[in-house]
């Protein structure tokens, strides 16, 4: 691809991001009817800090630490045969049994829906949750599969040439959501 990414506009700054996550935490509690058997599962890589942030907010509201799991979906991707070399495989782990639990999958950006499809496949290999819901920080549209989020931080209409970047303090040194645009090299 001849081109490079340039910053187009800022969607959320750190303060806005915190407020959005807090609202998402509230919606999750409401949807799940409390923290009972609730597990937040972050999809690697940036679903994990999102899940942690939501867990922090829930703890602030309810005084209960909700368990956070980590899901690596690499092995379930449907595009492995078209990308080379192979992406690095990282570990998946869950803090508690999924059987009968209420799982909320957390991811930073919802786009084609393929990652979530892979995550659902992966999840059922670990047990049979009672319900699975989806929480995303940004929904940028352009779905290729019939998948919708239950909790959305912010809906952002985008074009295919744009890239939504979510940055977290733990992974990227600061909390920020921006839209980058692919521009042709001069």
């Amino acid at each position, binding site marked *: 691809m001849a081109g490079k990414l340039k910053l187009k506009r800022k969607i959320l700054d750190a303060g806005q991001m915190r407020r959005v996550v807090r609202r998402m935490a509230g919606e999750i509690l409401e949807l799940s009817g409390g923290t009972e058997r609730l597990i937040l599962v972050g999809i690697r890589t940036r679903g994990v800090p999102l899940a942690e942030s939501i867990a922090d907010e829930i703890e602030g509201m309810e005084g209960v630490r909700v368990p956070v799991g980590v899901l*690596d979906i*690499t*092995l*379930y991707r449907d595009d*492995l*045969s*078209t*990308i*080379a*070399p*192979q992406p*690095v*495989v*990282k*570990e*998946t*782990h869950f803090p508690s049994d999924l059987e009968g639990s209420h799982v909320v999958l957390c991811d930073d950006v919802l786009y084609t829906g393929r990652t979530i499809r892979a995550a659902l*496949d*992966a999840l*059922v*290999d*670990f*047990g049979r949750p009672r319900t699975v819901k989806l929480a995303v920080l940004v929904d940028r549209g352009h779905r290729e599969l019939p998948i919708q989020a239950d909790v959305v931080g912010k809906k952002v209409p985008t074009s295919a040439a744009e890239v939504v970047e979510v940055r977290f303090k733990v992974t990227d040194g600061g909390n920020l959501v921006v839209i980058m645009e692919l521009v042709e090299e001069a």
Partner: protein
Amino acid sequence: MTEIAWQQKDLLSIADLSAAEIQLVLDTASSFREVSARPVKKVPTLRGKTVINLFFEPSTRTRSSFEIAEKRLSADSLNFSASSSGLVKGESLVDTALNLQAMAPDLIVIRHGHPGVPRMLAERVSAGVINAGDGAWGHPTQALLDAFTIREEKGKLEGLKVAMVGDIAHSRVVRSNIELLNTMGAEVTVAGPRTMMPVAVETLGVRAVYSLEEAIRGADVVMMLRVQLERHKKVMFPSVREYFQLFGLTRERLRSAKRDAIVMHPGPMNRGVEIASDVADGSRSVILEQVANGVAVRMAVLYLLSGARQEAGA
């Protein structure tokens, strides 16, 4: 965590790998070990890929380890072995390669009695080729699983003292392990009867000694090698009893190794020949961990090669 990409089409020899690539295999294997601990020990990663296991030599252990790894990755695997397959019998290797190529597999796992055969095959097929042992030359996945096991136990490879004891001349496990351990900065000592030590052994980059005690003194890892009784009994040493007296690992002798030294064996073991039962089953033995880790390492290799092939073919 290593941040390099796997680019090789084949895994033929440890000598072809850089330290970073070895690291990548081991790191990837770490992730795969978790898969074997799941309630559903299977991921769809290699769905639709065909893996051919081509064994020209009998091998229960390595073959089943590869088979399990393939099944856990959802690959379609099929086995040809010299005894059961007309494909292989009396047919030249070149024809075998052409036949395999026509079947369009994605990966071929090959064990052969003659060194260099996996490389010959790799040059003639577009599939990725994994060397599962060729003659006494190499057995790269064994070396990787041994390294993985050592790293799990010791947290590192660099600076460790590793002793390998037994039939150095005819062991493919030794050659691959030496290459890997040297690349990763471990210090290797080999020991065995003089009749089973190859000429110019020090050119492999090892220290060679001729007593078990001397080999394992201060060692972090003691790796005992299988004595191929059927092959050597007559010529290389006079009797099993005498071999055990000279080079059998007993609990007594293990005392000269470090207190936390681990004991390894690539299997299958001859209890009472190269290793005493109480050592093999003892607390320092990681022999069964090696077997478990073998599956994870082979999953990692299959996974990495299945991606690289696309690029090679593109």
